[in-house]
C-alpha cells in the first residue's frame, strides 16, 4: 500500500515536472494545428513532395531542427519565420506531438526494382544504416528515413552534398560527399520504398 502510494506520488511528480509539461503532445498538437498543419498536414503527413513528412519522426531530431531554424543556423526562409517565436517548451511539445503520430508511407510512384537496388548499394557503401540503423528508423538526433517523400529525400541529400544544409554537426555532409546525382536519386528511391 505504502509502496503503491509512493509510486503514485512519483508518477504524479513525473507527470507535472517542468520537462513533462514541455513534452506534452496535446499542447504540441494545438500549436501544430495553428502553425504547421497547413504545410505539413493535419496528421503530420504532408501532401507536397518537397515538404517533409513529420509523423513518427524522432523526437530529438525534430527538437534540434526547430532550434536550428529558430536560431537562423539552418537557413530555410519558410521555416525560420514559422519557428521564430517558438519557445523551447513549444519546440519540445511539437516534437513530442509529431514523434507520437503514426508514420505511414507517402503517396508514391511505383517501385523501380533496378533503381531501388542501386540505392541499396549506395546505402551499403556509405554506411547509412550505422547511424540511421539498418531499418532506417533513426534514433535520437538521427532522423527516420522511411515513410518520407522521395523528392524531399533527394533534395536533402543534394543539399548536404553541396554544403547547403547545416546540421547539428557535419556528419551528413561527410557521409554523402561526392555522390553523383544518379546515386542520390537511387538512394532516395530505395529509402522512400522501404516500409
Amino acid at each position: 500500500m505504502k509502496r503503491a502510494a509512493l509510486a503514485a506520488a512519483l508518477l504524479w511528480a513525473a507527470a507535472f515536472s517542468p520537462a513533462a509539461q514541455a513534452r506534452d503532445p496535446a499542447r504540441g498538437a494545438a500549436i501544430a494545428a495553428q502553425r504547421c498543419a497547413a504545410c505539413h498536414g493535419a496528421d503530420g503527413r504532408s501532401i507536397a513532395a518537397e515538404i517533409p513528412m513529420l509523423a513518427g519522426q524522432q523526437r530529438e531530431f525534430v527538437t534540434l531542427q526547430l532550434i536550428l531554424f529558430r536560431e537562423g543556423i539552418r537557413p530555410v526562409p519558410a521555416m525560420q519565420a514559422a519557428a521564430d517565436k517558438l519557445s523551447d517548451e513549444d519546440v519540445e511539445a511539437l516534437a513530442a506531438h509529431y514523434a507520437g503520430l503514426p508514420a505511414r508511407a507517402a503517396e508514391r510512384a511505383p517501385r523501380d526494382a533496378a533503381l531501388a537496388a542501386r540505392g541499396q548499394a549506395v546505402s551499403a557503401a556509405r554506411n547509412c544504416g550505422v547511424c540511421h540503423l539498418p531499418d532506417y528508423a533513426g534514433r535520437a538526433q538521427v532522423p527516420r528515413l522511411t515513410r518520407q517523400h522521395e523528392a524531399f529525400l533527394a533534395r536533402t541529400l543534394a543539399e548536404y552534398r553541396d554544403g547547403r544544409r547545416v546540421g547539428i554537426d557535419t556528419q551528413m555532409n561527410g557521409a554523402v560527399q561526392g555522390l553523383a546525382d544518379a546515386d542520390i536519386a537511387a538512394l532516395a528511391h530505395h529509402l522512400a520504398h522501404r516500409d
Partner: protein
Amino acid sequence: MKKRLFATLAATVLAASALAQQAAPAPVPGWAVGRPAGSTLAPHAPKLTATPLADVPVGAIRVPPGFKVEVYAHGMPGARMMAEGPKGTVFAGSRAIGRVYAITRNADGSTRTRVVAQGLPQPNGLVMIGDSLYVLAVNRVLRYDNIEANLDNVPTPVDLTAAFALPTEAEHGGNHHWKFASLGPDGRIYTNVGVNCNVCDFDRDKFALLVSFNPDGSGRRVEARGVRNSVGMAHHPVTRELWATNNGRDWAGNEWPHDTLHRVRASGEDHGFPYCTGNTPDPQFNKGRSCGDFVAPAALLGPHVAALGMRFYTGSMFPAEYRNQLIMARRGSWNRERLTGFDLVVAHLDAQGNVARLEEFMTGLRDDANQRFLDRPVDVHVMRDGSLLVAGEQMGAIYRITYAR
C-alpha cells in the same frame, strides 16, 4: 569446411566491392576514417532546449569533503567555454546553437542570463582583454568592445576575421574547426587549429596546432605542432609555460589512444600527431617515425574521455594543496563501448612541474550501472572569490564549487 567458409567470405567481399564500385562510393568522411565495419557507436545527441532548474542534476554531483556544489546559472542550452569581464560578467560560448551568453549577478545573489550574440558558427572560443570580449567562431574573430556596459544593446563587433586568417569550415572539411581561446601572460591570444579529419595525412604547418596571435590578429606564432585537437589551454601562473589538453583520435579501440595533457616548454615543439599519440605509434599513420623524436605528453588522461577546458587554480578559497594545480573538465566518451569521463580531474604537479598524480575531483554525472550520463562538464573558470565555475553543456547549466573549512 574452413575452405568453404573462406570461399563464401571471399565471394561476399568480391560482391560487396563490386556493388561498391557500381555505387561509386567516395572517400570515407574524415571523422569516420578507421571505423570498423558494423560499429554502431555514434556521438551522443546534444540538448539545445532549456533545462528547468528542477531537472539540473546538481544533487548527483560528488566532490571531496568540505566542498559544496550549487547551480550558479541555468537555462543556457549548450553553454560551453567561459570568460569573465572586469565587472564580473561571466560569458559562455556554445557550439551548434551559435550563441554567446552573458551571466550577471543580481544584488540578492541570484543570476540573470542574456543572449549577447547568436547565429554564429560554433562560437566556442572566448577571451576577455580589458573591456573587450573576443569571440572565436571557427575562422571568425569578433571583438565586442566595452561589452559589459552594453549587455542590453550589444554593439556591432569589430570583425578581425581577415587579420587572423584562420582556416575556414571548408578547409577543415567540417572537422575540429571550433576554437578554444586563452589570454597569455604576454597579452597574446592563444588558440587551437584542430586537425581536418579524424586521422589522416595533412598539412602539419596548417592543422593540429597550438597558435598565438597579437590581439589584432598579427604576429601568428606556432606554439606547438602535432597536437590533434586541443579544446583547453592555460599558462602556468608561476612558470608561465603553456599547458593544453588534447583529444586523441577515434576508431582505434576502447583502450587506445588516451587523451593527453601537454606541457609546452618552448614555442614550436612537435608533439607527434599523427605519427604518435601518447608517446606510442599510431597503428596506421606512424610511417616509421620514432616516438622518442617527439615531446612526450605530461600525462595520459584516459581513452576517449574528451578532456576539454582547463585552468590552473589560482584562488585562495580551496585548500592549499589545490593552489596552482591544474583542473580540467572531461566531457565524456562516445567512441568507446563503456562510458569514461563526465567529470573534473585535478592534475597535481610536483616541484619540477611534472604531473605527480591525477585526482578525480568532481564525479557523479556518469551512471556506470545504466551506461548513461546526467550532464557533460566542458569548462572550468576560477572566480575572483576563489570559487570554481563548471559549465555543464548537456543541461545548459553552470555549477559553482565552493569550499568551507
